[in-house]
């Protein structure tokens, strides 16, 4: 049998294993091992690369640090304050709580860089409130899953870091390019909330109160400060994305540790409704004790322990694909489509299909080095393509059968996976519309970049 036949058999075998529930890490690893045997390659490269990806990559360090930032701001109570603010701003609209959930995802995403952390945090915080508020539990869980997609588009973002690391693009510029598309995704999903909730008459309307908005904005000041710190540091070049992540971790720990005794000292009652809380109490968040830090860190470590090994094996898979001539084959197929838009839309279709069956990090690591040069060859700006690619990869988080956010939302809300799909598809449609818009209007990604 030829090498091509063997590789097809191996690919089909691992696809079967994937469908039977074997972990994705093993799927990719055994595809690599199988292909290594067929191509007569030593496995030493696999072992070495699984270490080199981490020990030679300072830029990649931003990933665990931004995951930890997410957990710290969640535990310190900053995330709750951000969601209170979002609800105060949007609660007067039909579907306001669902829209606040999406808005809170956007704000949380601006400090953390992880889709799953965003989904888990906002989902666990607002799902019970939404169900209590008369929303369908499937819609509520789907909202958390969809809202999490902006976690990796609004900067800082883990996947932008990985993309920049792979494609040698400046991560700071990628972050800036993600801002407008991320905001558009938030707006598009809010519109879905409004339409669905208006049709179904879900949720209770609250009166708009400027006082409440101001009060919750004061309560969320630490969150806004963290967002400003990250964006200022990266935009002015004061620190690299990795250092920005380190700074926000330090900020989160200091805020948590200082707030806890301060909160006790001020005798703030966390059970009081916001309207009855004194304004002074809004300046301080709940915080946490020194002994809480290990339990916070271990949650982040668990997520890192899932994602980081996937990055390592995906890098080796990409190398094998490169050896197999995937770039030439896919390149030939894509470029045969014609000019700028046919190539761009074919590349987007490939990202979409890959996102349905793979986690977004492997999709990025495997597909970006193949598709980015092809897009560049027809004149697509590399930063613009990065944003198009990554918005597509983020949509992969809610595309069945393999949508990570759907699993996370199902896990934190207890709503079974397949029941989520009814409403997640509505969000999916809105995100695809934004994706097409971002692809057709380069200014949406490029206008914030320094000239």
């Amino acid at each position, binding site marked *: 049998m030829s090498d091509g036949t063997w590789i097809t058999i191996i690919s089909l075998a691992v696809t079967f294993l*994937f*469908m*039977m*529930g*074997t*972990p*994705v*890490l*093993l799927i990719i*690893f055994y595809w690599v091992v199988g292909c290594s045997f067929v191509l007569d390659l030593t*496995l*030493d490269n*696999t*072992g*070495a690369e*699984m*270490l080199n990806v*981490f*020990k*030679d990559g*300072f830029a*990649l*360090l931003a990933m*665990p*640090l931004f995951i930890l930032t997410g957990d710290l701001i969640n535990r310190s109570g900053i995330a709750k304050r951000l969601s209170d603010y979002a609800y105060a701003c949007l609660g007067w609209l039909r579907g306001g709580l669902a829209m606040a959930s999406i808005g809170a995802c956007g704000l949380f995403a601006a400090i953390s860089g992880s889709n*799953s952390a965003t989904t*888990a945090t906002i989902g666990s915080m607002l799902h019970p409130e939404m169900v209590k508020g008369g929303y369908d539990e499937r819609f509520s869980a789907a909202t958390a899953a969809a809202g999490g997609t902006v976690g990796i588009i609004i900067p800082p973002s883990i996947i932008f870091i990985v993309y920049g690391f792979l494609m040698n693009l400046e991560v700071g510029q990628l972050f800036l390019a993600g801002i407008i598309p991320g905001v558009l995704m938030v707006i598009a999903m809010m519109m879905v909330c409004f339409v669905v909730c208006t049709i179904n008459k879900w949720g209770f309307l609250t009166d708009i109160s400027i006082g409440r908005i101001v009060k919750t904005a004061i309560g969320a000041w630490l969150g806004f400060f963290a967002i400003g710190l990250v964006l200022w540091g990266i935009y002015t070049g*004061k620190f690299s994305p*990795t*250092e920005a*992540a*380190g*700074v926000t*971790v*330090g900020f989160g720990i200091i805020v948590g540790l200082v707030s806890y005794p301060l909160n006790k000292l001020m005798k703030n009652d966390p059970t009081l409704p916001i309207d009855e809380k004194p304004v002074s109490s809004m300046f301080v968040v709940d915080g946490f004790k020194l002994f809480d830090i*290990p*339990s916070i*860190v*271990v*949650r*982040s*470590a*668990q997520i*890192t*322990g*899932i994602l*980081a*090994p*996937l990055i*390592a094996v995906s890098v080796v898979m990409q190398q094998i694909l490169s050896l197999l001539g995937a770039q030439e084959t896919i390149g030939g197929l894509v470029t045969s489509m014609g000019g700028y838009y046919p190539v761009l839309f074919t590349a987007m279709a490939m990202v979409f299909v890959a996102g349905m069956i793979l*986690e977004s990090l492997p999709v990025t690591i495997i597909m970006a080095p193949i598709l980015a040069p092809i897009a560049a060859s027809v004149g697509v700006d590399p930063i613009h393509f990065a944003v198009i690619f990554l918005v597509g990869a983020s949509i992969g988080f809610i595309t069945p*059968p*393999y949508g*990570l956010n759907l*699993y*996370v939302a199902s*896990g*934190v809300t207890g709503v079974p*996976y*397949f029941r989520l799909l009814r409403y997640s598809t509505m969000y999916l449609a809105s995100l695809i519309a934004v994706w097409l818009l971002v692809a057709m209007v380069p200014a949406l990604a490029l206008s914030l970049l320094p000239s």
Partner: protein
Amino acid sequence: MSIWADMSTIVTATLSGDINFKVVQAYRSDGAWFVFGPLTIIGAVLVHFIYKAVPWLDRNLERSIVVYAYIIMATIIFVGVIQRFVFSNQVPWSTTIPPLLFMIMAWYGCSFNVKLRTHLSFSEFRTSLSPKGQFACLMFDNTLWMIFCIIVVTTTSRVTVNTYDNFAIVLGTDNVMRWWFIVTMPLCFIMMAGRVLGNALEDIANFRSGQPLIKQAVIGGDV
């Protein structure tokens, strides 16, 4: 050299610490698979029994490693930025040690997820199988994990001995050897093999007693 000679060289040189070019060559030979394959399995059994004998280690060993690696890594980077802003200088190893700690954290975190069975997978079809089908899938996964561990223990041992033989120093330091960090990798995968063995025994016990075999794993849940 024959496989037996290579195996003998690997074992004696590793035990005596007398690593030279000839030993590195032996590590690169097929003999290494015959040393590290059984070693991983024996190590897995040993680790499993240690976890059984000392439940504290079972609960805390991996999580302590990842937590400390995480905290030290974050602290080094944070302090590095503060040093640069306040004192206009930064220790040179503040950008070279954290990636090595990340490597440790990533793979020990991977082992921790093997214990918790929280690695990403598409389990919708599996959960609808009969108990026998589920058991077969789980045992197959355990076998795949064990082979994964054997492959990585062998290949990372080769990287370790190569790094040791090159006297590679962590950049920005005077005397911190790179192999001190790299050697944690084969150890990590032996510990992971111990987790795989533990999972396999748990699956067998659950199957025999008629307990549910697949439980809903929540990322960030049972930690």
